[in-house]
C-alpha cells in the first residue's frame, strides 16, 4: 500500500470536489450520504497506517509509509509524503473527526448542502495532507488548501457575526502563512547556497548551518504561522470569533484537528529546522504559552456564552500543549503529542454538545439554561463525562497528557510550569461553574422544560469519543510507546540524548508513579504495561 497516504489525502479532496460540482442544488441526500461514506471509508483506511507496527527497543516502531514523486524539478520540489509516530495518530484523529463532524451536521445544514459537505471533505483532505507532507513546499500547499474550505464553511454557514469573524480568521491565517512563505523560501535558498542544490525535503533541511548565525528571523516567520494556528498568546484573538460563529460541527473539526496542526508544524518544521534559534527563544515562548494558559482560563470564567467558554478553554489547553512543546524533554514532548489527541477528543466533544444544546434550546447563552439535568438526563451524563475529562480527571485521557507535560516542562521551566499548573484549578472552576449553571438548579425557562433528550444518532456520535477518552485514559501505553521513537528522534535535533531511560527515570523524577510514566514512554515497553497502572 505505497499509495495509502495519497489515497487518504485525495479520496476526500476529489470526492469533495465531485460533491461540490455534481451535487444537486435542492436534494441534499447525495451530498451528505456521499460525504459520510467517503469520510467513514477514509477513517477505516487510516487505521491501515497502524499495520506493520513492531516492538523495538525504544517503544513501538510504526511502519513508515512513504511516497515520493518529482514535482517541480527546477527547485527540487517533490511530492513527498511520510508518516511517523507523531503524525500517524493525528491522521487517524483527523479522519475520525471528519466522519463525526459530517455525521453531526445532519440537522444543522439544510440548504446549499453540496457546498457544505464538499468543503468538509476538502478541509479534511487538506489537513491530512499537512500531516503527511514531508516536503516543506507540499506542506505549505496543503496548509493553504485547507484554509479555503474553512473560509467558506464559516463564511457561508456561520452565525450572525460570521463575516467579521471569517475575515479576521483568514487575514490572521494569511499573515502567518505568507510570513512562513518567506521562511520556506529562505531555508530552501540556504540549502542551495550551502549544499549546492535546491530541496525542500524537511529532513534535508534539519541541521543546516545557516549563514546568518542562528537565523532568528526566519524562525520567527514560521513561529508566526504556527503560533496563529495554535492560538499562541497573544496571537489567539481570531479564535473565539471564528469558533463561536462557525457551525458547531465545523468548530468541532477546527478545534479538534486544525488547531493541532499549528502545534504539529512547530514540532515537525519550525523547532527542528532552527534548533539554536528555538533554544534561544524557548524561555520567552514558554512564558507566552503560560500567559495564554492563565489568561484564557480567566477569560473563560467571565463568559456568558457556552460557545465562548469552550473556545477559551480550548485556548487555555492549547497553551498547556505548547508549553510541553517548548520544553524539549521526553515526557513533555510525548505528552504534548498524546495530549493533542486527548484535547481534540474532549474539546471537540464539548463543542458537539454545545451544538446539540443550541439545536434544542436555540441559544447557547448560559443564562438561558438551568436545571437541564432534570429534563435531559442522558445529555447531562455525557456532558458531565466530557466536562470532567476536560478538567483533567484521572483515568481520562486529558489527565495523562497534561500530567506528562507538566512533569516534563517542570525540568525546563519550573516557574512557568508552576503558574501554568494553576490552570487545573481555574479549569475546574470555570467548567464546574458552567455545568452547575446550565444543568443544576431549578428549571427556569419553558424552553429547557420542553427539551428532548439526546437521540440515538447523537449518542452514537458521542460514543466513539467516550471510548477514546476512557480507552486512552486507562490504556495510554500502546500509543505512548508508538510515539516514543519519534519524539526521541525529534529531540536529537536539539542535542537531547537519544535514550534517556537509564538516566532520567531513577534519578531525576521523584515519585515512583511519575518515574514509571517516563520509563514506559521512553524506555522498554514490557514493564510499561504495569507501570501505567500506577498512575491511577
Amino acid at each position, binding site marked *: 500500500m505505497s499509495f495509502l497516504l495519497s489515497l487518504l489525502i485525495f479520496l476526500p479532496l476529489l470526492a469533495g470536489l465531485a460533491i461540490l460540482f455534481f451535487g444537486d442544488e435542492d436534494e441534499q441526500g447525495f451530498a451528505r450520504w456521499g460525504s459520510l461514506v467517503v469520510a467513514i471509508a477514509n477513517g477505516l483506511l487510516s487505521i491501515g497506517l497502524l499495520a506493520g507496527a513492531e516492538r523495538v527497543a525504544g517503544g513501538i516502531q510504526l511502519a513508515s509509509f512513504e511516497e515520493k514523486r518529482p514535482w517541480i524539478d527546477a527547485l527540487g520540489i517533490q511530492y513527498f509524503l511520510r508518516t511517523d509516530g507523531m503524525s500517524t495518530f493525528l491522521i487517524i484523529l483527523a479522519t475520525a473527526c471528519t466522519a463525526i463532524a459530517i455525521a453531526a451536521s445532519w440537522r444543522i445544514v439544510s440548504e*446549499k448542502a453540496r457546498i457544505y459537505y464538499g468543503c468538509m471533505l476538502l478541509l479534511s483532505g487538506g489537513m491530512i495532507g499537512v500531516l503527511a507532507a514531508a516536503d516543506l513546499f507540499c506542506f505549505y500547499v496543503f496548509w493553504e488548501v485547507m484554509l479555503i474550505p474553512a473560509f467558506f464553511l464559516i463564511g457561508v454557514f456561520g452565525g450572525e457575526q460570521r463575516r467579521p469573524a471569517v475575515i479576521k480568521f483568514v487575514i490572521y491565517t494569511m*499573515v502567518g502563512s505568507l510570513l512562513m512563505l518567506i521562511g520556506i523560501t529562505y531555508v530552501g535558498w540556504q540549502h542551495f547556497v550551502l549544499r549546492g542544490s535546491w530541496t525542500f525535503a524537511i529532513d534535508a533541511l534539519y541541521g543546516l548551518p545557516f549563514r546568518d548565525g542562528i537565523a532568528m528571523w526566519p524562525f520567527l516567520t514560521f513561529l508566526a504561522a504556527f503560533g496563529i494556528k495554535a492560538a499562541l498568546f497573544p496571537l489567539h484573538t481570531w479564535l473565539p470569533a471564528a469558533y463561536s460563529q462557525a457551525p458547531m460541527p465545523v468548530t468541532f473539526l477546527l478545534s479538534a484537528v486544525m488547531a493541532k496542526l499549528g502545534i504539529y508544524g512547530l514540532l515537525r518544521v519550525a523547532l527542528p529546522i532552527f534548533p539554536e534559534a528555538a533554544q534561544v527563544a524557548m524561555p520567552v515562548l514558554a512564558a507566552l504559552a503560560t500567559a495564554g494558559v492563565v489568561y484564557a482560563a480567566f477569560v473563560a470564567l467571565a463568559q456568558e456564552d457556552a460557545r465562548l467558554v469552550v473556545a477559551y478553554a480550548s485556548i487555555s489547553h492549547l497553551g498547556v500543549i505548547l508549553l510541553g512543546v517548548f520544553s524539549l524533554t521526553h515526557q513533555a514532548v510525548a505528552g504534548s503529542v498524546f495530549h493533542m489527541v486527548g484535547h481534540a477528543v474532549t474539546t471537540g466533544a464539548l463543542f458537539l454538545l454545545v451544538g446539540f444544546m443550541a439545536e434544542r434550546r436555540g441559544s447557547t447563552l448560559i443564562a438561558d439554561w438551568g436545571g437541564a439535568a432534570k429534563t435531559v438526563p442522558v445529555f447531562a451524563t455525557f456532558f458531565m463525562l466530557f466536562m470532567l475529562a476536560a478538567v483533567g480527571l484521572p483515568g481520562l485521557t486529558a489527565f495523562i497528557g497534561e500530567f506528562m507535560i507538566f512533569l516534563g516542562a517542570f525540568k525546563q521551566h519550573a516557574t512557568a510550569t508552576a503558574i501554568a499548573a494553576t490552570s487545573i484549578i481555574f479549569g475546574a472552576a470555570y467548567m464546574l461553574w458552567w455545568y452547575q449553571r446550565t444543568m443544576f438548579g431549578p428549571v427556569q425557562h419553558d424552553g429547557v422544560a420542553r427539551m428532548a433528550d439526546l437521540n440515538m444518532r447523537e449518542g452514537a456520535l458521542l460514543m466513539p469519543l467516550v471510548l477514546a477518552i476512557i480507552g486512552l485514559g486507562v490504556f495510554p501505553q500502546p500509543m505512548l510507546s508508538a510515539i516514543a521513537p519519534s519524539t526521541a528522534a525529534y529531540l536529537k535535533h536539539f542535542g537531547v540524548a537519544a535514550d534517556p531511560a537509564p538516566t532520567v527515570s531513577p534519578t531525576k523524577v521523584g515519585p515512583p508513579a511519575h518515574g514509571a510514566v517516563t520509563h514506559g514512554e521512553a524506555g522498554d515497553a514490557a514493564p510499561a504495561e504495569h507501570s501505567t497502572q500506577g498512575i491511577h
Partner: protein
Amino acid sequence: MLAYAPLFPFFLLTAVALIAMLMSALVEDGAKVGWFTAAGLTGVGVLAVNQWASNDGPHRLLSDAVTIDGFSYFFYLLFCIIGVVSTVMAIPYLDREQAQRGEYYALLAFALTGMFVMVSSDDLMTLFLGLETMSLAVYVMVGWRRHVLRSNEAVLKYFFLGSLAAAIFLYGIALIYGSAGTTNLVDIASLLHTPALNMNPVFVLGSLMVLAAVGFKVAAFPFHMWAPDVYEGAPTPVTAFMATAVKAAAFALAVRVGLALFSVGQLHEIGQAVVWHLAILTMFVGNVFALVQKNMKRMLAYSSIAHTGYLLVGIAALPDADAGAAIMFYLVAYAFTNLGALACVAFLAGREERVENIEDYAGIAWRYPLVGLGMAICMFSLIGFPPTAGFFGKYYLFIAAMKANLAPLVVVAVINSILSVYYYLRVIVTMYMVPPSGAVDPAESHIPGPTRAVIVYASIAVVWAGIGTANITAFLPGAAPLITSAKDSMKSLMSKPKPESERTTTTGER
C-alpha cells in the same frame, strides 16, 4: 526567402489584421469579423508553436534589427492566447453594448502586431515602432464606446500621457544614440564594457528615460496615474486586453532593454537601485489604494499596479535567468487570472456597465454559480493562494529575488500580499456571504456562451498552471514544461554575443 521563415508568424498576423480590416468594410455583422480574427490568431499561435518546437537558435534578421528567439516565441504564443480570449470575450460584450463593429477586431490584431515587433526587436528604433503600433491601436480601443463620457475621458487621458511617454522614450533613444553611436541593443551591450560609455552621464540619462517610458506602459509608480481612470473607462474586454497583453509586452520590452542597457557595471547598480525603490513604492501605492476602492474595475486597476510592483521585484533581480523565467511565468499566470476575473466583471456589469461596484455583487455567487466560482478562483490566484497560478508566479519571483540577495524586497512584497488579502477577499465575501441586493439586472439570467467559455477555461488554466507548472510536459510539442521553457527562452535571450561579460557566462551555466 527561407531566411525569413522565422518571420512567418508575424506576416500571418499582419495578414489577419489586414483581412479583418477589409472584412469589416464588407461584412455587416461585426461578430463574424471577430470569429475570423479569433481563428486567424489561433493559426498564428499554432504556427509560432511549431516554429518554437523546431527552433534552432536565435535568428537575427533585417540588418540585426530583429531577433527571433525562444523569448520571442514564448510571448508570441502568450499574445495569441490573450488575443483569442479577449476577442471571444469582446463578441458578446459588443453585442450587448450595441457597438459591434468589425474594426474593433482589426485594431486588436494590429495591436498584437505591434507587440510581436516589441518582443523581438533588438534595435531601439524598431522597438519604438512596435510600441507605437500597439499604443495607437489600443488608444482607439479604449475609446470604443464613443457616446460614453467615462470612455472619452479615459481615452484622452491615456492618449495624452501615452504620447508624453512616447516622447520621453524617443528623447531617451536620441541621447543613447548620441553617446553610443548606435541604436542596436546588442552593439550597445558590448560597448557598455568600455568605461567611456558606462560612465557617460548622457547615456545614463538616456537609459533612465527609456526606463521611465517603460514604467509608464507597465503603470509603475510614479507613472501609474492613468491606470485607474483608463481601466475604469475602457470597455471591460479592452481593460482585460490592457491588463494582460499590453502589460506583458511592456515587461518583455523591459526585460530586453534592461538586459541590454542595465546589466553591466555602474549602470547595473543605478538601474537596480531605481527599480528597487520603484518596486517598493509601486507595490504600496497599488495595494493601499486598492484597499479603499468601491468600483471593481478601479480596484483591479490598482491591483494591476500592485502586480506591476511584484514584477519589478523580478526586474530588479535580473540578469539572473531564473528572474527572467519567473517574470515570464508570472505574466502568464497573471494573464489567465485577469482574463477570467474581467470576463466575470464584463458579464456582471450589465448593459452600459452600470453594475460595477463591489457591493452590487452581493449574493450573486448563488445566482450565477459559475461566475461566482470563476471569480473566486481568480481572486484566490491574485492573492497568491496555492495551488493557483498566482501563487506559483509569486513564489518563483520570491525565489529569484532571494537568490539575487534581495531579501528585503521579498519581505516588502510579502507585506504587500498581506495587505492585498483584504480587498480580494472582500469580493468573495460579498459574492458568497452577503444577502443579495438585486443590483444585477435580472434580464441577464443567461450567461452568453463565449463568456461562459472564457470563464471556464481561464479558471481551469489558473488552477492547472498552479498544479501542473512543472510536470505536465505535453502542453507544447517538443517544448519543455512552462517554467523550464521560460528559463530556456531566457537563456536563448541572454546567450547573444556579449564579449567579456562575466554575468552572461555565469548565468549561462545554470
